[in-house]
């Protein structure tokens, strides 16, 4: 039986990949802070695991990333677990369907990931913060928009979008740069479709 990318029966390698991917998210954020880059870059592991092992592992990695981050650093990240799941799913589906193969396609995937993140985060922002995201630049734009009497959900959408687009595109570029360089000896571990052949 050829188990498809949606199969929930995960191999040991795929399961052990998740802690490593969450670690990569964590260290990506640390390095971005260390180098004082104007981006979060805290989802490289989620995107990479989605590219390597598909949407289910990508989503799981996103969820566990936020749960662990909530348990160990900042409880607020619990509520954004859905966003990370969305990013993992989106990139995972696109990767498995072979959409990610050139530099331009990487930009497109980054944009799609940013849209997914925005669409999921906005209702959360509205429900939790009344529409803001907590990012200084984004919130200034938010204030300006609702000052001109636009509806709250548009202001919140734009607030999230302008922050997510650069970050998610940069994240997918870095993840793809790494993924392209990976040797097949490692990537084959995470593929679903290999069987033992009789010699």
């Amino acid at each position, binding site marked *: 039986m050829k188990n498809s990318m949606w199969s929930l029966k995960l191999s040991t390698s795929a399961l052990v990949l998740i802690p490593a991917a969450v670690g990569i998210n964590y260290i990506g954020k640390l390095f971005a802070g260390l180098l004082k880059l104007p981006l979060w870059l805290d989802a490289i592991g989620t995107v990479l695991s989605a590219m390597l092992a598909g949407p289910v592992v990508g989503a799981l990695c996103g969820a566990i990333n936020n749960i662990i981050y909530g348990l160990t650093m900042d409880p607020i990240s619990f509520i954004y677990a859905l966003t990370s799941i969305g990013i993992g799913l989106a990139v995972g589906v696109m990767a498995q369907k072979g959409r990610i193969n050139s530099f331009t396609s990487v930009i497109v995937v980054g944009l799609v990931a940013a849209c997914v993140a925005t669409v999921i985060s906005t209702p959360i922002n509205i429900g939790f913060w009344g529409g803001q995201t907590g990012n200084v630049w984004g919130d200034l734009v938010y204030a300006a928009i609702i000052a001109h009497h636009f509806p709250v959900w548009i202001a919140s959408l734009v607030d999230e979008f302008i922050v997510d687009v650069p970050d998610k595109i940069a994240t997918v570029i870095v993840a793809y740069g790494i993924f*392209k*360089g*990976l*040797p*097949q*000896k*490692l990537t084959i571990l995470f593929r679903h479709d290999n069987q033992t052949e009789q010699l």
Partner: protein
Amino acid sequence: MNKIEIRNLSFHYSASEPILSDISLNFDQRSTAIIGQNGAGKTTFVKLLKGLLKPVSGEVLINGLNTRDATVATLARHAGLVFQNPNDQIFKNRVLDEVMFGPLNIGQTPDQARASALVALDTVGLAGKVDDNPYDLSLSERKLISIASIVAMNTDIIIFDEPTIAQDHAGKERIKSIIRALVGQGKLVLTIIHDMDFVAETFERTLVFAEGRVLLDGATREVYGQAEVLCQSHLEPPHVTQLASRVGLGTTVLTVDEFVAAKRRGEGEDRGAG
């Protein structure tokens, strides 16, 4: 002129746990092995040579440059360090790009960098794998890539951190010949190592570190002759040296050939058959 001068060097992360205490050493041309138990301060010592750590007290001069003032990048032109785990530095997906990374950073032009990278890859025996992905190769081959990436920077001083870990016999022989070639080119080669047999056959001088101090410093033959001191820091002289002293050969024997030669000359006292 000494390539490295160290005067009263001390270092600790927290005052309660000194790691290196009042070390004064000079390194001339002789290839030197730094041996000692884990936690004796070997890796910290090498980081201080590279300027990755600044001394708490005392001075470290690399080719006259004081590591307190010079940046890591400028020091990188004088001293190269091959790290123990090749996976800690390899990130490019082509062997040649990886080896050219160092030379390009210290200011070699792309052509110079490419030339010195190809020469370095040839010395380590990977001339045929220039376009491979480093992670398609074995761990020992990646180790050779990390060596080549430092050799290509052709610095005066090259430091190895545990070069023989996870190497088979052929791998050790290749690293031995690389070190001999570098010493032949007049470079100062230092290494942190546990493999006593490898040191006996490769390095002229040996430093024994214990609890942050230099316990012994001298020609390898001299240091290996002091079995009881070595034993203090859990170090065992090579098997052939042990056999030689058991059989009563006068001088400290380092290699099998020396043992055989000494025995042929009839050294060592006779014993009854018992």
